[in-house]
């Protein structure tokens, strides 16, 4: 049931993005839109690929592209050079591990190492982003920004699925059915938060305080 809702709901951010196309004209938003399309297509063809026993390849490839898109989005949102450099170095390590795992033995149905490493890195990048925004004195209401909602979606999704991804490779079919609901719940939440972000108006201009009086009134 949850799986079907999660798969069906994938269309929502795509439709909303296209409706509010004028509000979503930044590179970062296009990257997330691209991710939504990819995720929706993967969800739809997953059943077919699973039947052909391509589960490992599907998960690995999806992790590979998902990481690329999310890290690109965060890279575009970050301002501090040091954080960007860390992101590039970590990405190189991540891709090294993912390619190594992909090329190695494929005895498991799920690429736990890559997925959990991706989740850990994403949590760290999200913390970088939030720290940077907290430090910026010009930003008064962080939740007025579109990218804040995307980051919150990523943070909630990856922090709640981290442990699931660590153990996913060792799951039996029954355990997989029991626990995969966690992924579905937070996937739905992520989709909803992406949709909220696409609906929001662009508030990227620096907000200013107004006390309601000007010098003319003095």
């Amino acid at each position: 049931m949850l799986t079907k809702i999660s798969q069906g709901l994938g269309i929502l951010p795509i439709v909303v993005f296209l409706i509010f196309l004028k509000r979503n004209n930044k590179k970062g938003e296009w990257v997330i839109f691209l991710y939504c399309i990819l995720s929706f297509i993967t969800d739809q063809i997953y059943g077919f690929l699973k039947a052909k026993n391509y589960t490992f390849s599907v998960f690995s490839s999806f992790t590979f592209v998902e990481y690329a898109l999310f890290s690109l989005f965060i890279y575009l949102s970050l301002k501090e050079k040091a954080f960007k450099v860390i992101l590039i170095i970590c990405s190189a390590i991540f891709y090294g591990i993912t390619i190594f795992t992909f090329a190695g033995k494929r005895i498991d149905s799920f690429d736990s190492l890559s997925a959990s490493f991706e989740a850990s890195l994403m949590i760290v990048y999200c913390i970088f982003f939030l720290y940077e925004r907290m430090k910026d004195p010009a930003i008064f209401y962080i939740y007025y920004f579109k990218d804040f909602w995307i980051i919150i979606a990523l943070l909630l999704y990856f922090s709640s699925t981290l442990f699931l991804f660590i153990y996913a490779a060792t799951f039996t079919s029954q355990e997989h059915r029991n626990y995969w609901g966690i992924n579905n719940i937070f996937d739905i939440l992520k989709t909803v938060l992406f949709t909220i972000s696409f609906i929001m108006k662009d508030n990227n201009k620096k907000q200013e305080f107004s006390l309601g009086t000007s010098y003319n009134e003095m």
Partner: protein
Amino acid sequence: MILLQVTNPGSNVSLVLYFGTIGMLALTIGLIVFIIFHQRKVIRYQLRLQRLEHDQQKMLLNASIRLQEEERQRIAADLHDDAGPLLATARLYLNENLVNLDKTTQLQSIYNAKQIIDDTIQLIRNISHSLMPPTLKNFGLESAVNDLFQRSSGSGSMNASSRFHDYRERLQAENELIIFRVIQELVNNILKHSNASFIHLTQNTSGDRFFIRLHHDGRGITQADFEKLNKSNVGLGLKNIQSRLKVLHGKIFFEKDMSQTYYKVTIELDKEDEQDKLREGE
């Protein structure tokens, strides 16, 4: 179903998975809540700061407007009470010439009218000098301050002296005027309120900083008093000093000397600001 798995004592993996996920989720939600509350706290603090600054600006602006009005009233009073009657008297003497045909009386009344017109010229000159001292305009801050101190010393009740150690290059004319007005206000305050027997002014520079220090042995104020007076409705002169120095991005410090005998007032300015203004002017 997840709970059923957790309650199974043999399932260590599910226990770690369950508590790990709950823990991570709690940490994430905690982090988000912390960020939002922290931001709200920062916003409240910044708003409070801005409101304080806004009130202070309003007070300074009011003080400067009031002072300007007082100055206008003083000039109006000088012109109305002194120049007006003098010119009216001169007119009366000249009128007399038309009526009186006696040569001696005519000469006498012309002489009287000339004397009155001379007095009026002197009066208008005094008013003009009080608006813009000619010494300051022609010879600079050092000469104008020396002049001011000589006049204060002239009464005999107080010993006033000044010494400029490093004033080879004059500041911009409008900045000199602002500094001169501040010094004038400080000297006036000392004369009026402190009961001092001496005032000594020194000027020097240190790097890019320009300093003017005033010492006196009367009853003075400290920085805390200055800030208190600045926030209250009294102390118009001090607010005026503050608003003038704000234009120059300058600072003023009121303190008691280490020996606890003298009061010291230090005016500190940035010479770089002055150079920037000069460059803008060019």
